[in-house]
């Protein structure tokens, strides 16, 4: 909503600098996004959060002047010479403005033209450049004629984009008057939130300015002509009052369609609308001023459609298959639910959105039927969206226009038309208001204000604040009864109404004037969030293991995620949750796999990283059978390792590529640190992984996840660049399950008090026997006395023989209550080697 200060001042006195006014409005919920000065000084940068534009006009160099004669240029058809008086002296000024050509060569003008005159050295916007570029007017020669001054276009002054012709001023102005004294203004552009629909007008904003600054509001009063429900010229039928609570018609005869007065056109332009003609301008002017969008029909067209009878206007919802050609000459298919204004012959307009072509006001229109109505904002919103027809009218109707405004709007429109187009308004209005809006009455007490705001205000103060916004107020004791004024629909009933009024009290009192306090309520039961605590613990463990956390976009495509499987393998057959209106296809599906996100991330980083050790914790989305229709959001932990084991410096480092056992070390340490019981690994079979280097991660019988080296056929589906050759290792862990297995308490072992006996044991066994079998057996036989067991060497080849491997273990024997004797240790050792031989065919290596 663009509001020129001069227009606001029609209704309220403003004695603040514009930046201060903008600040007060912003603090009260009407954010001023831009301040555009028209000739006035620019506010200091930093004095406001609003964008600033426009420039200050020099009082000496930009003045009102009068053109008394327009003469042809001796050497150029497209230029004219103007005899011009700037109040001090006469000048000959060169211009190419086409809107002066009609005066060319007709001698001294009977009625001199008032123009904006710029003298040498004046600052102006360059009319010939795109955008707003300031330039200084310099003396020059154009086609042999010296030129040191000019007549300005609106663009050069920063009033509008208009640069075709020069700007004409009010004929009553006196030459020599500084231009800023006549046209100086500032336009504030206010971003209106949905609850501030009442401020989508000059009067609405002026009302807030009055309330905030404590000045009186000079609201317009209309001497009402009597209203009837029908007349000789029109009648009304509202078929559904919930769609159309009110409809008001006025008639004005014998209008002369012509351009509006200069000052009217000027105001419309400042407010961001294009002047068209006096009738259209009157509807727009009344709308901008009061907030009621009006629609003008050519009465004679309707009269003819009614075969010369009184026009009957019917409002109703569209039926399936109906169409209307709107005044932009587009035939539109209408959805059911579109509200229509019709007569008995058919559809006239899309209510609140756009008029039909047939009944549009044209240059030959003489009699105008003027519509002011209120519409169901939800329906108008749907129509404006479906037809893609945003307009000043639909902007207001989709936010809600109070039915009481229909009548004032029509009156104001008729008044302006009679003034500007010399029409004769019919004394009657036709008014149908089947469902009058009842103004909410709300009672609030000083205790309510205290309870909501933490602020002590007297009832008198509360009443005064509300009265500033035109609430009717009644104080009794600690209580204020407030009746909502007839321009706003955002105040509810009952407790909602209380909350609404509390907001108005806070707003006008000023949020800045509410104290800052600490919550005095008792602290609620403190239960913590075990899931988050455990998740954070996992994060900490993984970073301690040298991994970098990443967080990815949740969206992907099946094709992108499909790369985590080999091309020829079965595809991911779980259906995706798909976004109906994605920004792009690449962002249309919610992911199934965190490992896929990790692979994508690794791919992007491979060009500049030699080592990647990454993890991500986040949801994956799977369709579920839940009756709510909501998907399962399962939390996954993904780990990815790739590249050299240790970072390189100037000294020797372990630059070998990480392998399966690096990943396993991370996973083992994580699970051990979390005290997960009975962790074991089984050879896995998953299409993403190398078949010989894949393991299922188990806790007891429960599968926590899968890990391994990414299958070469998967690896080659990603672009790793020319240099990154290392295998990719990944783990995919069900975090929800993992967290559920973390014991609430864990037991710490005492530090042993008696010495340990440490021995090495090397065995040779078949390659096919997994190491874990030997380890399990040794632990089982070693029992309590075997405090620790560690594999420290794996050897193949040499004297070991084909198909065999040698495993060397370091065994630590220890008892908690005594020093072990040699014979005790020897007994255990012998039992272990015997059982290894019996059960696994493992021989001691000599």
């Amino acid at each position, binding site marked *: 909503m663009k509001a020129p200060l001069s227009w606001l001042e029609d209704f309220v006195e403003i004695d603040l600098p514009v930046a201060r006014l903008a600040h007060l409005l912003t603090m009260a919920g009407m954010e001023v996004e831009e301040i555009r000065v028209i000739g006035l000084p620019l506010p200091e940068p930093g004095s406001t959060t609003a964008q600033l534009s426009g420039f200050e006009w020099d009082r000496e160099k930009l003045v009102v002047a009068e053109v008394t004669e327009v003469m042809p240029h001796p050497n150029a058809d497209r230029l004219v010479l103007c005899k011009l008086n700037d109040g001090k002296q006469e000048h000959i000024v060169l211009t190419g403005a086409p809107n002066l050509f009609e005066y060319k060569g007709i001698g001294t003008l009977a009625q001199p033209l008032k123009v904006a005159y710029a003298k040498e050295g004046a600052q102006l916007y360059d009319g010939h450049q795109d955008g707003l570029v300031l330039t200084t007017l310099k003396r020059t020669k154009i086609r042999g004629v010296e030129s040191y001054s000019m007549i300005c276009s609106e663009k050069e002054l920063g009033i509008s984009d208009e640069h075709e012709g020069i700007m004409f001023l009010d004929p009553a102005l006196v030459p020599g008057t500084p231009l800023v004294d006549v046209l100086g203004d500032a336009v504030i552009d206010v971003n209106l939130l949905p609850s501030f629909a009442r401020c989508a007008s000059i009067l609405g904003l002026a009302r807030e300015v009055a309330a905030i600054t404590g000045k009186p509001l000079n609201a317009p009063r209309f001497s009402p002509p009597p209203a009837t429900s029908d007349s000789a010229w029109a009648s009304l039928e509202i078929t559904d009052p919930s769609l159309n609570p009110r409809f008001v018609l006025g008639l004005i005869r014998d209008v002369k369609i012509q351009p509006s007065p200069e000052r009217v056109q000027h105001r419309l332009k400042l407010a961001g609308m294009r002047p068209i003609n006096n009738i259209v301008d009157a509807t727009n002017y009344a709308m901008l001023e009061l907030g009621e969008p009006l629609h003008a029909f050519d009465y004679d067209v309707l009269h003819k459609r009614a075969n010369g009878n009184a026009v009957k206007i019917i409002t109703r919802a569209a039926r399936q298959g109906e169409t209307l050609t709107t005044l932009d000459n587009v035939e539109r298919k209408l959805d059911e639910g579109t509200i229509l204004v019709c007569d008995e012959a058919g559809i006239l307009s899309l209510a609140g959105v756009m008029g039909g072509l047939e009944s549009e006001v044209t240059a030959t229109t003489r009699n105008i039927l003027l519509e002011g109505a209120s519409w169901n904002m939800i329906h108008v919103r749907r129509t404006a969206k479906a037809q893609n027809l945003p307009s000043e009218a639909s902007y207001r109707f989709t936010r809600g226009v109070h039915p009481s405004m229909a009548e004032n709007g029509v009156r104001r429109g008729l008044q302006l038309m009679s003034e500007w187009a010399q029409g004769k308004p019919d004394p009657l209005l036709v008014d149908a208001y089947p469902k009058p809006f009842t103004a909410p009455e709300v009672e609030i007490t000083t205790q309510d204000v205290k309870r909501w705001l933490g602020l002590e205000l007297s009832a008198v103060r509360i009443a005064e604040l509300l009265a500033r916004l035109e609430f009717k107020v009644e104080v009794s004791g600690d209580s204020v009864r407030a009746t909502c004024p007839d321009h706003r629909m955002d105040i509810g009933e009952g407790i909602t109404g209380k*909350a609404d009024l509390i907001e108005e009290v*806070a707003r006008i009192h000023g949020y800045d004037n509410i104290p800052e306090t600490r919550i005095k309520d008792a602290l609620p039961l403190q239960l913590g969030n075990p*899931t988050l605590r455990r998740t954070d613990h996992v994060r900490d463990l993984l970073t*301690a293991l*040298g991994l*970098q956390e990443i967080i990815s*976009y949740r969206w992907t495509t099946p094709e992108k995620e499909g790369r985590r499987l080999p091309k020829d393998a079965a595809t991911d057959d779980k259906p995706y949750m798909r976004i109906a209106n994605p920004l792009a296809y690449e962002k249309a599906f919610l992911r199934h796999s965190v490992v896929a996100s990790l692979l994508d991330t690794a791919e992007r980083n491979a060009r500049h990283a030699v080592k990647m050790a990454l993890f991500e914790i986040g949801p994956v989305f799977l369709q579920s059978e839940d009756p709510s229709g909501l998907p399962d959001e399962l939390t996954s932990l993904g780990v990815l390792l790739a590249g050299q084991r240790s970072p390189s410096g100037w000294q020797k480092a372990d630059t070998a590529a990480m392998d399966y056992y690096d990943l396993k070390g991370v996973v083992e340490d994580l699970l051990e640190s979390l005290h997960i019981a009975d962790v074991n690994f089984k050879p896995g079979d998953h299409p993403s992984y190398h078949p010989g280097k894949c393991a299922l991660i188990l806790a007891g019988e429960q599968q926590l996840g899968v890990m391994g080296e990414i299958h070469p056929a998967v690896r080659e589906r990603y672009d790793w660049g020319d240099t990154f050759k290392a295998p990719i290792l990944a783990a995919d862990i069900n975090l929800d399950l993992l967290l559920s297995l973390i014991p609430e308490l864990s037991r710490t072992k005492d530090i042993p008090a008696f010495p340990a006996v440490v021995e090495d044991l090397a065995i040779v066994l078949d390659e096919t026997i997994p190491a874990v079998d030997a380890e399990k057996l040794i632990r089982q036989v070693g029992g309590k006395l075997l405090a620790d067991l560690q594999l420290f060497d794996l050897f193949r080849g040499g004297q070991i023989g084909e198909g065999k491997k040698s495993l060397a273990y370091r065994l630590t024997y220890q008892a908690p209550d005594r020093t072990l004797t040699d014979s005790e240790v020897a007994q255990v050792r012998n039992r272990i080697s015997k059982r290894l031989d019996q059960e696994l065919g493992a021989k001691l290596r000599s």
Partner: protein
Amino acid sequence: MADYEEIINKLKTDRENAARDAALIVDESSAAKFKTTYLSPSSVLAESTQAIKSLDGQFKPLVGQASNEHKQYLTRLYDQAIASLKEKQLKASLSSEKLDITLPGRPVHRGRLHPDTQILRELLAIFSDMGFQVFQSREVETDEYNFQLLNFPVGHPARDMQDTYFMDVPDRGDNPLVLRTHTSPGQIRAMREIAALNPSDPPPVRVIVPGMVYRYEQVDVRHETQFDQLEGLAVGEGITFSDLKGTLTDMARRLFGPDARTRFRASYFPFTEPSAEFDIQCFQCKGAGCGVCGGGWLEIGGSGMVHPNVLRNGGYDPARFTGFAFGFGVQRIAMLRYGINDIRYFWDNDLRFLEQF
């Protein structure tokens, strides 16, 4: 038959020679040579000790004593020489083993948390100290939870304030699935869960709801279409707007120092009434206006008193309970804190960005 005087003289000469040679001990071999010359079985000392038994009785104690003294003397000479030799060697080694201490250390590969996690932890800790507990809530929501229960009726213009991603799920009428546009559905879910503990006398609520939210918005350096939000909710019998102001000002102080100031501007959110946007005074320019802030204040988020309809939808009687709620972007705080210029860095996961934290 050794002569008493001859032995004494020999010892005397030996003493002089030893004094001279001890001064020549400069390394291990000269030390060994000294030991062989003066302290071995073939030394003058050993000879004189041998000779004692062939002396006359009266001379025995005299030579014995002289030999003894001589032995002590030689041993002392030797020990001193060795000590000074060691000291010299240590000095030499200390001055020769000098590192270029400016060479870089061995690189360590440290794991790091994502900067979003780091700042979120800081925020959660601040609110945890004020008694706010973390409540987590789902990312795909129903229209009912994301909008309707938060007082955005179907077709209401306030919905235009939050450009929404809808899920492609047919036949859901007025209750489509959406990617949550804010963490506020967590308000309803938290209230309902806590109220269910004792529906007739629901316990007070003080929760903080972090999580990913989604807006249908073109992405640029300042705008993301997926971002992390933090929602706060306090419901009780004495919660006021002034408490809201105090709580967020406390947060600002914890984040930006004891002089931090906040500002509340009237605003509109369907689920709060009164509603406010809150700003923190720019920590760069202290409110004077600069390139970081524009007009001296940094826009942080939205807030307000929980709307009576929302309280009721959460299971709390608005005639008895009041509440406040607020929400803001976690990345916004991180960007201010770490001087990050481009919001797209967060989920792009370029290690050259992540490894700076």
